[in-house]
């Protein structure tokens, strides 16, 4: 059974049909790339899966159960964590504060009612979480804003994984990174997937997605037109599907 199954999702903005019935499966242990040209519907699909937009029709199932969410918070509660392109980190807060933001652990006893933080528990929790995802940050008390791009990405991923998500959405994870950092994020993505949280990778970077993903799904004019195994398809094959050349037709609209 796929961890997340998307069936016949449609979405239009006024007269513009952004998604025309998208099907997509992500299985346990997989890294799946979602690629497509600008305007193919990638961002719309991501926003629907992360709860920021609601589809007009179609179903989303997690572990076989249909789900729907009115907000990104609900999507998260149902097990879809999104690592946004901007990472959503507070640069002035420490690593552990970022990891626990919004789900803070409070002290036991009367101070709990004053919202007193259990700092020690959160520092320990953050260390355990990062260790489990094999992320090395140094001190979890470092400010997020002082870390390198790759480390920041790692915290955002670590935070998402730590909260017991069923599937991880990553939107252009390496857009702002140098080559070396991209490598590290790549390792991170693979390690997350191998630990049981499948990853849906939305990216423009074809060579990278070819290297990282098990499969890629190509969106073209609001449809998932093909599902390619990376071991069988080349980057050139991807390009011809993205541009529509592989369809043997050129859409006028």
């Amino acid at each position, binding site marked *: 059974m796929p961890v997340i199954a998307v069936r016949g999702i449609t979405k239009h903005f006024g007269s513009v049909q952004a998604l025309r019935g998208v099907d997509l499966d992500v299985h346990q242990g997989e890294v799946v790339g979602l690629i497509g040209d600008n305007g193919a519907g990638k961002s719309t699909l991501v926003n629907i899966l992360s709860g920021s937009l609601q589809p007009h029709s179609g179903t989303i199932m997690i572990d076989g159960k249909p789900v729907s969410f009115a907000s990104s918070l609900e999507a998260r509660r149902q097990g879809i964590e999104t690592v946004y392109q901007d990472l*959503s980190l507070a640069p002035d807060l420490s690593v552990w504060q970022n990891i626990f933001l919004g789900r803070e652990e409070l002290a036991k006893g009367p101070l709990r009612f004053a*919202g007193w933080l259990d700092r020690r528990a959160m520092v320990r929790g953050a260390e355990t979480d990062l260790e489990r995802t094999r992320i*090395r940050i140094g001190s979890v008390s*470092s*400010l997020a804003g002082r870390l390198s791009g790759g480390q920041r990405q790692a915290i955002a991923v670590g935070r998402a994984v730590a909260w017991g998500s069923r599937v991880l959405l990553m939107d252009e994870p390496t857009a702002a990174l140098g080559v070396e950092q991209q490598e590290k994020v790549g390792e991170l993505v693979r390690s997350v997937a191998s630990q049981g949280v499948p990853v849906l990778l939305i990216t423009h970077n074809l060579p990278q997605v070819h290297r990282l993903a098990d499969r890629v799904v190509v969106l073209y004019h609001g449809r998932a037109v093909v599902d390619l195994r990376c071991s069988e398809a080349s980057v050139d094959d991807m390009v011809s599907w993205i541009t529509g050349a592989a369809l043997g037709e050129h859409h006028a609209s």
Partner: protein
Amino acid sequence: MNVRLPPALTSSGAQPVRAGPDGEETQRSALLSAVDRFGNYWMLGVFVLMLLAFGLASPRHDLFTRASWLNISQYAVEFLLLAIGQTFVIITGGIDLSDGAVLGFTGMVSGVVMQGLLNSHANTTLTTVAGFATAILLGAAIGFLNGYLITRLRLPPFVVTLGSLTAFGAGATPLINGGNEVINLPSQIGTIGQTLIAGWVYVTVLVAAVACVVMGLVLHRTRFGLRTYAIGSNVTGARRAGIRVDNHLVRVYTMSGLLAGVAGMMVMCNFTDASPLAGQNDELNAIAAVVIGGASLFGGRGHMLGTVVGTFIIALLVTGLVLLNVSGSWQQVATGIILVGAVAVDQVRLRLAER
């Protein structure tokens, strides 16, 4: 015991940044933590230097006397109370230009209420309690209004609180009691203002100190404080983390107004009257104190201890220059220089800190 460092300090001090995975980052960390350590304490150094300079320059070194301490601390009360609320507001990335006006307005309304009660022969203790309740609730209400307009109408804090400053400070306050001071107040008001604890601490100073400690703990140890930083640091991220940003901001501005109400009462106790001139321009000193204390007007950074140091720097400037017989205008010039200097040094520090 393990001291929990505030977000603004966490990468330095007791817990040095551990070496990153590669050598280049190790070097950077060493530089950073040195820069950070300097950044956290240099204003305290400025304060000590000022203390020494004024102390040695003043005739007979009378800065270092009990009388001078009582003066400075009493003078600092109103700025400290305003600056506490302002610290929270500024850390969220906002600003409260209205707190001085709220101080004056709540003091006058409270004064008139107490005068009315006294004229109808009410019990003076109850009258005093009613006066405090009036100022504090009214201050909180104006703060709530500020927060409500900022979050629900999506107006910039600068505009909303400038509106409040104008409406209450320049507009409403002079209309109360015909623009005259209210001097017919319960005797308890004067008693509170004049009572010294152990000969060294005015009750009003104790009130400000308690407010400072309590709000400092709220800022640095509670979920409310953490979320205050988070909102100022990355508001979108805070929303995505499930924080109800608008509610939080309303609470922060309400608190700022409430503390301005308390400040209004403290000023009234110090002077044993309610004056329509009270609190004028105080908001600028409060903002200056917070910024000198290391807060960023862009939000996300600031510290309660820094605010205390900033407040005492301003209070020391005023009283120190008075001791040296320098006119009040020069005190404003000096505050301005320190303010700009503090921000300039901070900017250089940040630029050094960013790769």
